């Protein structure tokens, strides 16, 4: 991977967001991933989502671990700080960062190896803390950078390029997250930007842990016949059970929804998510129903996508800890230091 600066060309009539910025202002350096990599489509969707939300670029923090997916924060929002950390440890770094400054918007980009093998422990515990972040798994079932070994999300019987079929049970991040108490859980496909962008927006605005499991085919090592993470397989088997539209706080719901098929959920900042049920049996506010539906679909070989579960009633890590509103990193020293006279008083306790 080399570092290539992207030339900045902006059309004078390019659409501008509420900050007066164009989508170009949210780009990063040129991707060095393989041509056709699903990850690049996700990067594009992130750029569009952040641009449309009008997030100030420097108020975004881009976090990642190690792997192909973890390189991608370099490819979006160049005016945001990025932290490309240690393999499988993005969750802990983000937890500390969020502890220090709760004002920033955190997006973490990880992969199936980074999250479900080496990082499974941190993945589980960041969910338990309901850390306020958008956690994207760019899920392709293989290790790309080390040339094609199966990851923990590879399905039984799936065949990667030049490998025997996988025999071990996969770890499904979505059902894992439902079991561990995540409060916003979505799955999508890198090839479906229309579905992906509102899901990213909702995840960024959700006050708590938001998981986005995005099937993102690896064109080099796992896009062959027999792979269950290929473009062809995903296109054939993915099943939109529920779509979600993201409505910013300032806007009214204008689209026409059929009675009984739509359901608005209000987020903390005043924005709304409107669900459009494509499958009548599905209830995205019931953890038990979501889990059961998900397991059935796995059994049937379907890849169900959409915003699968949401709960806006649970407080995030800071609400649980009772931390002050002001970011801890901004508290002045004289507020933090009890001073000489308090210390003198305290000494009597130790005599």
């Amino acid at each position, binding site marked *: 991977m080399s*570092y290539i600066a992207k030339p900045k060309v902006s059309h004078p009539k390019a659409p501008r967001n509420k900050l007066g910025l164009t989508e170009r202002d949210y780009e990063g350096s040129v991707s060095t991933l393989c041509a056709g990599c699903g990850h690049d489509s996700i990067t594009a969707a992130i750029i569009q989502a952040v641009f449309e939300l009008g997030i100030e670029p*420097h108020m975004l923090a881009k976090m990642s671990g190690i792997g192909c997916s973890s390189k991608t924060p370099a490819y979006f929002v160049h005016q945001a700080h990025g932290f*490309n950390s240690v393999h499988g440890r993005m969750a*802990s770094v983000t*937890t*500390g960062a969020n*502890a220090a400054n709760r004002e920033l918007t955190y997006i973490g980009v990880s992969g199936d190896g980074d999250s479900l093998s080496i990082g499974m422990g941190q993945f589980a515990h960041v969910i338990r803390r309901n850390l306020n972040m958008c956690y994207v798994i760019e899920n392709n079932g293989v290790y790309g950078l080390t040339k094609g070994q199966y990851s923990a999300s590879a399905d039984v019987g799936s065949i990667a390029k030049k490998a025997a079929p996988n025999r071990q049970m996969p770890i499904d991040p979505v059902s894992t997250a439902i079991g561990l108490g995540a409060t916003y859980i979505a799955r999508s496909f890198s090839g479906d930007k229309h579905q992906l962008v509102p899901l990213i927006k909702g995840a960024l605005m959700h006050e708590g842990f938001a998981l986005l499991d995005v099937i993102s085919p690896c064109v080099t090592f796992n896009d062959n016949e027999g792979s269950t993470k290929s473009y062809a397989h995903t296109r054939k088997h993915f099943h939109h059970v529920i779509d979600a539209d993201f409505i910013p706080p300032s806007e009214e719901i204008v689209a026409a929804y059929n009675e009984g098929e739509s359901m608005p959920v209000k987020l903390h900042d005043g924005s709304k998510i409107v669900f459009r049920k494509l499958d009548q049996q599905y209830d995205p506010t019931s953890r038990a129903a979501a889990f059961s539906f998900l397991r059935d679909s796995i059994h049937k070989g379907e890849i169900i996508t959409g915003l699968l579960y949401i709960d806006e009633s649970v407080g995030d890590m800071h609400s649980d800890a009772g931390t002050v509103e002001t970011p801890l990193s901004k508290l002045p*020293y004289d507020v933090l*230091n009890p001073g000489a006279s308090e210390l003198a008083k305290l000494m009597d306790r130790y005599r």
Partner: protein
Amino acid sequence: MSRVNDVVIKIATVNGTGSASANGLLMKAIFRMGIPVVGKNYFPSNIQGLPTWYEIRVTGEGYQSRTDKIDLMIAMNAQTYKEDLAAVSPGGWLIYDSTWPRSRLLDRADINVFGVPLSRMCNEHFDTARARILMKNIAYVGVIAALLDIDLEVIKTLLSETFASKKHLIDANLEAIRLGYDYATENFSCPLPVKVEAMDKTKGHIIIDGNTAAGLGCVYAGATVGAWYPITPSTSLMDAYTSFCQRYRIDEETGDKKYCIIQAEDELAAIGMVLGAAWNGARSFTPTSGPGISLMSEFIGFAYYAEVPTVIFDVQRTGPSTGMPTRTQQCDLMICAYASHGDTKHVLLFPANPEECFYMASTAFDLAERLQTPVMVLSDLDIGMNDWMCPDLKWDDNHVPDRGKVLNAEQLEEVERFHRYLDVDGDGIPYRTLPGVHGKGAYFTRGSGHTKYGGYTEDATEYQDVVDRLLVKWETARTLVPEAEIQYSKMNKQAILTLGSCDGAAKEALHDLSKLNVGLNYCRVKGFPITKAVQEFIDKHDRVYVLEQNRDAQLRSLLILDANADQNKLVSMLHYNGLPLSSSFVVEQVLKETSKGQAA
């Protein structure tokens, strides 16, 4: 044998029986009489039912270490009676619970054995089983008070302070004290020839353990994020930080907390959290012990290379692997100095006592942010968990913390372009920026190869440029770590060089050796890298005894690796059985070495 204010009391009990509060009461009473004390707790890695000992050295001279002699043994644990009996110094005393008969085989003619029916007396005076067990401990305090002539009024005051509004507890405790005290005065010749007498040597001093002092130091340093995974013997450091934050860091109006403590799922996560918080501008830290350092190593290397301020307290315990979790050692010097794969080296601080734990907490955060690198404070179980007499901790309200080279929004507005890893000032320390401040300050923090401008690289020259600059920074660190404590006289050609908790025993040994006409200079290293003054100190001597508490002479190795010291001069004195160092060990070792020199 008649001695005043020079006595060692050892109390053998079973853990989980409440003896800790009785022992604390005894030690504080002596301290309140103005007499310096040293307290050492020897406890098992267990919650209830295993042997535990508490040792109180009453030292009118104000020494800081333990000694190997025991004048007065309170043998409350039948399980260890035999070894406790054997441990008493000739001419000393042993007190046992005579409620039950004692085997005649368990006796010694060269000591005085006193039986006190502690259980019987407490069973007669107290109703509940729990009270009978607890009060038996308080009763032996009464016995010791009579034998050593401890002021009962002081004990009364302490009890009323401890139990404040609970009068029934004060009364019960006083009754137990009285039981022991009266039995001793009626049956033995009190006081003993070794006894205590009030003096005025503890004014302006406190009794505190190093973990409490370090936790308090973190509050005073302005640390706001603490991430940790529980591990003996560092746990009480976070407990202390938590309780001080609850006292000093709650918003009066809202009740909100001006701190965030996260109990992580393991040490891998704890250190990741510290890095994330520090990267984002908060002073953050983690307390741990040796096994935690092993797990944190990858991140420590990352923090070194990506230049993220990181503060770690390593309260060392006996290793390797799980080792003996409740025994002390200085065995993590090498792993901490060079933690992680690749070429890395880290700034270390070596506090010698709780007082230095407090002040060095602040120094650690200042150095970490100034140098943008991990700083590890290497305490140990002896300092961290034992009770030390220290001068009152003080604070200067004019103190301004050193937050290092951080560009703010205005400064970023002015610069043409920000380059994360550029050595602008020639001291090897680049400028950094915090997220959320200004778009011009954005950069990509990474552990992979990067250029001095902050961009990714796999270019040979660009890579080497950065790691070479880190060596310039290392030389800057050498000028910033705390200077060693040095006692030098031209007369002496030999010296003791040591660190951390060896200090008390070493100084007492120097004193004892001077009485034997063995004159030695002294150097106590307070930080790593090794300062120039330490190098010069070594150069000025023919022989330097390197005293440390590990098997493999780790401090000696650091001197050779980092200070280029002449290894032929450096003679190791190694103590690594898990017990705190005693001055007699040092005296014996020095005498052995010096006599070898004369024979040759």
